[in-house]
Every structure is written in C-alpha cells, then in structure tokens.
C-alpha cells in the first residue's frame, strides 16, 4: 500500500492531484486531512496551503500488472516460441501484449488460445492478489481486429434484419464478443439486441424494431 502526502491550494485541489498521481478514483483512496488551508484575506494575506495524506485502499494496479506479466511470461516459457511480454494500464485494466513471431499459434482458432491465456492469467492473478483484477491479453493487435470484424458482422446482420423484418441470431459467442455486438448496434434505431442461451452457447439475437413502438427496449449487458 502506498501512502503519499500532497499540498495544494485547497483540499479539493489536493484530492484531485492525488487521484491523478495514483491513477485511482476518489472512492478508492483513504484521505486524511492534515491541514485545511485557508485563502487568507482576499487570497493574499496569510494564505495557507491545504495538506492531505492519501493511502490507496486497493493494491496499486501497477503492482498487479507487474505480477500479471510475470505469470504470463512463466506460461509462455513452456511454449516453444520466442516471445516478450509488455504491459500497460488502461482505465484500471491490465493490458498484456505478447510480442512474438506472428505465427498465430498464440491466437488459435477464433482467439481460443489467447482467451485461454487471458482466462488463466486472470484466474492465477486473482488468487495471488486476493481480489479480481481485469486482465486483457493481446497479441498482434488481435483484439482490435476482432472488434472491427465483429462490428462489421453486426452491421451486416442488422441490414438483413431490417430488410427481412425477421430476427437473426449470431453464432455462440463469449461475453466479450457479445458485448462488441451489443455496442455496435446500440445506436441503431431500427434493431434491438438481446443475449439468449446458457453458458458457452449464449448468443446474440438481433430483432427488428416495429415502427409503432415508441421507445425501443434496449437490452445490453
């Protein structure tokens, strides 16, 4: 746990500075006010700075990211493929990127291997850290490419649904992929989306929206 002390014009400013420095939202910080500070008379005479002590309540993502990188590297060490792992933090998500020879071995059919890596790294990390940390494992920009192709698929299906006025169903998809479909069609006023099915067989159904309906009932996960 890291503790820092920050001085600024007001308590508010100091808190904002602390959030920025630790890259954490305010709810995850424990804030102790050491001195409230005052602006003095007309902000000139006797101005005193506010001072706060801030302790992060959560394990810093940075440490978790480092640990996640170690776990992934350890797994990849057993796969006969030269690879390097680098990490970054994107809105509280740990993003691990594998740099390898680009053979697609680490991606697998429809990202099966990549998803398995992601699943296991996140599971092991959660056990070690004691809380759930969202982890994304990527290689060769696969996640972005997947998002693009799924968005395109969503648009094609939506087009068909609009023309035929009949609902259409995608193939079985994991939650990440379904989310991309839902988001892609969120702004589309002529169709609505809903997830159906159980477990691995869960899929997205795209329904046409009847014109008479006033407010389309959107259902996203």
């Amino acid at each position, binding site marked *: 746990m890291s503790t820092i002390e920050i001085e600024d014009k007001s308590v508010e400013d100091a808190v904002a500075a602390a959030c920025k420095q630790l890259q954490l939202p305010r709810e995850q910080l424990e804030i102790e006010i050491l001195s409230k500070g005052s602006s003095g008379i007309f902000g000139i005479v006797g101005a005193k700075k506010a001072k706060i002590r801030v302790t992060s309540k959560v394990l810093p993502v940075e440490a978790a990211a480092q640990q996640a990188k170690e776990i992934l590297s350890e*797994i990849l060490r057993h*796969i006969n493929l030269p690879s390097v792992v680098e990490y970054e933090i994107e809105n509280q998500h740990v993003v691990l990127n594998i740099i390898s020879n680009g053979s697609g071995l680490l991606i697998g059919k429809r990202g099966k291997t990549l998803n*398995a890596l992601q*699943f*296991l790294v996140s599971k092991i990390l959660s056990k*070690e850290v004691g809380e759930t940390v969202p982890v994304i494992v990527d290689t060769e920009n696969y996640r972005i490419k997947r998002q693009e192709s799924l968005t395109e698929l969503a648009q094609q299906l939506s087009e068909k649904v609009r023309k035929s006025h009949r609902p259409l169903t995608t193939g079985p998809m994991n939650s990440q992929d379904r989310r991309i479909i839902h988001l892609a069609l969120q702004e589309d006023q002529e169709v609505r989306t809903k997830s159906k099915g159980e*477990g691995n067989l869960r899929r997205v159904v795209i329904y046409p929206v009847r014109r008479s309906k006033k407010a389309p009932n959107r259902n996203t996960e």
Partner: protein
Amino acid sequence: MKELVEYLVKSMADHPDEISLHEQDTGDTVVLQLKIAEGDVGKIIGKNGSTINAIRTLVQAAASSHKKRAKLEVLN
C-alpha cells in the same frame, strides 16, 4: 508440457502438494494424467469445465509448438 500443467495447476490449487502428474509420450502424442486433492477438483475443472478446457487449450498450443499432440486427463 508437464511443467506447464504443473505450474498452472499448482498456482490455482489450494493443496499444491497433493498434485501428481504422469506423462506418457507415445511418439507423436503426449498423454498427461493429473491427480489432485479432492477439494481442488472443482477449482481445477471450473464451471462447465472452463478452467480445465483453458488448460487443455494451452497444453495443445505448447504441444503443437513441439510438433506434437497432447491430451490431458483428470483422474479423480
């Protein structure tokens, strides 16, 4: 391949000392037989087999990087 499974299972199990893993190499196919503590079975298999299937996927990837096939069985 054996070490990969060992590492994965050990880091997820509550009783890492009670793991036994037997490797049988028949030329182009490697068969791995895993035994774990009774209390860990559910954890290693996961909901709808999600965890064991993820481990299998990685073992298969590791095996194909050695131009081999692999099978992983849980013997409990």
